[in-house]
């Protein structure tokens, strides 16, 4: 009975997904070029961002002609050929694969946003850089750094961190009632999260030119800024806002010398296999999780690390990142995996902190789902289960019907590779437990319909680790290790892609 209900719920979810045509307010894609900024309307089809082909005539000078079920686009003497419902397009003689098919609706043709950087740009010898989270398309050699903002509020100060990719010089200056951060760039690709309640910063917003303006709050007295360069491709500017008792104020000190970087390049390149990451901060709300001897709660640490990881992935990899919770709330296990499934995540990472009866036990661990008897049966069922449904606009299409509680069974091999890469990433930066990679029947992983792992970032029951886990430096180290693992996992998926 329960399974039938779940299967029905899944079907309803699928039906809802296929009805996603044109819902909500009309979003737009900002096109940035030497000539300035212009907005191109976006149409959402099947949860994917599309753009109408006729909108491209203005900015790119394309002319289109419809013939025999296809559309021929010409500009600058080059030709692109599009076919309705096909993922493949021909761009100046080269075949280019798109993540979603070309759509013809109401006498208009629509292409997924990836068409612009993958097909149109190369065909017209134009440099087009798509920044998906900000819905921004950068044309030509404009310097538009991606800036992801993070706000950490403590009881006596607030620190605002800008993760900047690529490395871009920035200058902070104090004016009446505000701090102005000037970036050396042509435009900014800026992401600012909602501001938590605190008395130091009243708002953060883009200012005139290439500036970000931090309006100061009633308790603000002084600031201190520092910049660093965590790797070759990005820089970090941190501004601490403190109460007036502190007399520390100053300019940006010079960046420390570059460490020898032996890490793989993390320049944002389009990936076919890894586009969306869902991070699951363990526990939350009434579920405190483990507790350290000084009272540190697991649910707070997991949220802090997840937020740092999100900032890093967004700024350095340019992937879509969602958190299963972004505040202190109780989230049932099924809702966590359902959230990842509904967001069509390509990777699910659940973040936890560990506890043991003996205080000397420490180190990080990685888990992926273990195969119980029922899972082995489920895997077979999952592989066999495919049903044919009538599709919108006639015809049929085959979909995989996956039982909620057995979804992970078919991803065990990839999850094991993911766990291995996470372990290697962590080992390079933090202390590992003697049993670094393990399999276990973990509840939150069961329903995840994508490669998934659970990361125990350290033992809260160990007094030293409790201190580490609360420090920004250790949390950043963890986030960087997981970022490294995702970069390698992305390479693995891209290699394996057809």
């Amino acid at each position, binding site marked *: 009975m329960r399974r039938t209900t779940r299967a029905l719920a899944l079907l309803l979810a699928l039906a809802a997904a296929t009805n996603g045509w044109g819902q909500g307010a009309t979003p737009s894609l900002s096109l940035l070029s030497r000539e300035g900024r212009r907005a191109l309307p976006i149409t959402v089809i099947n949860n994917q961002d599309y753009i109408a082909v006729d909108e491209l005539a203005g900015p790119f000078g394309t002319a289109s002609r419809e013939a025999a079920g296809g559309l021929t686009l010409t500009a600058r003497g080059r030709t692109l050929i599009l076919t309705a419902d096909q993922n493949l397009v021909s761009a100046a003689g080269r075949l280019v694969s798109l993540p979603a098919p070309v759509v013809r609706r109401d006498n208009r043709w629509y292409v997924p946003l990836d068409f612009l950087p993958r097909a149109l740009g190369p065909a017209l010898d134009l440099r087009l850089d798509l920044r998906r989270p900000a819905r921004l398309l950068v044309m030509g050699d404009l310097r538009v750094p991606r800036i992801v903002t993070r706000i950490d509020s403590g009881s006596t100060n607030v620190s605002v961190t800008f993760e900047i990719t690529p490395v871009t010089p920035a200058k902070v200056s104090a004016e009446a009632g505000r701090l102005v951060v000037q970036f050396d760039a042509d435009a900014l690709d800026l992401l600012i999260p909602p501001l938590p309640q605190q008395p130091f910063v009243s708002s953060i917003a883009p200012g005139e030119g290439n500036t970000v303006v931090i309006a100061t709050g009633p308790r603000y007295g002084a600031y201190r800024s520092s910049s660093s360069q965590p790797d070759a491709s990005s820089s970090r500017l941190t501004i601490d806002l403190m109460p007036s008792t502190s007399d520390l104020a100053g300019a940006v000190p010079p960046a420390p010398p570059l460490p020898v970087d032996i890490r793989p390049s993390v320049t944002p390149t389009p990936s076919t296999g890894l586009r969306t990451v869902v991070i699951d901060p363990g526990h939350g709300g009434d579920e405190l999780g483990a507790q350290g001897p000084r009272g540190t709660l697991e649910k707070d640490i997991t949220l802090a690390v997840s937020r740092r990881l999100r900032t890093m992935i967004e700024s350095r990899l340019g992937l879509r990142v969602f958190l299963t919770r972004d505040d202190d709330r109780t989230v049932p296990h099924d809702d966590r995996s359902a959230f990842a499934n509904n967001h069509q995540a390509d990777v699910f990472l659940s973040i936890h902190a*560990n506890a043991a009866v003996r205080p000397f036990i420490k180190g990080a*661990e990685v888990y992926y789902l273990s195969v119980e008897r029922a899972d082995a049966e489920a895997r077979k069922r999952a592989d066999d289960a495919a049903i044919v449904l009538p599709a919108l606009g006639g015809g049929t299409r085959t979909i995989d019907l996956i039982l909620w509680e057995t979804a992970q069974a078919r991803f065990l091999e990839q999850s094991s590779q993911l766990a291995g890469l996470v372990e290697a990433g962590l080992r390079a930066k933090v202390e590992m437990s003697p049993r670094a990679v393990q399999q276990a029947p973990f*509840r939150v992983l069961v329903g995840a319909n994508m490669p998934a792992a659970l990361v*125990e970032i350290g033992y809260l029951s160990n007094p030293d680790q409790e201190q580490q886990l609360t420090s920004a430096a250790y949390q950043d180290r963890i986030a960087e290790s997981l970022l490294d693992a995702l970069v390698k996992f992305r390479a693995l998926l891209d290699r394996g892609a057809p």
Partner: protein
Amino acid sequence: MTIRRVLMGVAAVVAAAVFGWLVMTGLGRLLRAPAAPPEEPVAEVPAVAPPEGTATEGPKIKATLFFASEDGQRLVGVQQDVPLAEGTVAQARALIEALLSVPAPSAYSSTVPPGTTLRGLYVSDRFEVFVDLDATVRTRHPGGSMQELLTVYSVVNTLLVNLPTMTEVQILIDGREADSLAGHVDLRRPLRKNEGLIQ
């Protein structure tokens, strides 16, 4: 003549039916006998504390109870005297009660929170053991994946190592099916023995 034939026919049919019934029930018993213990395989025994003194008297068996290793990363099997009980269900109950009450040997530590009690124990006809623990096992649990794995699998392994005819163990909390114990391990389905955690 015809009446006699009809009567003979009826008698033959009745005889065949009786023979068939005997064969079926007899076969059923024969088939159940080697797999199931001689007593009723589906049973329910209320968890009542044994009277004082019975634990120290009477016959014992050498059983393996599971505790957390010195480094807290593994389960260690420790030989203990446990009262011999009549039948699988009673023996399973005796094993869990020993696991909950026997202090851990000096180097090791107990995996089950102190004060946890056994509310009941059932065995299904598919040889799955259902262990019903009171809510203390959840409320006094220190949390953490590793500790939760040790708690769950010390119960599962203690039962399945000592009672090899049993296949799987499901932990219930306060008489109900539980989602998990401390937020990690899936308790909605019966679990098999975990060899990987054993030192």
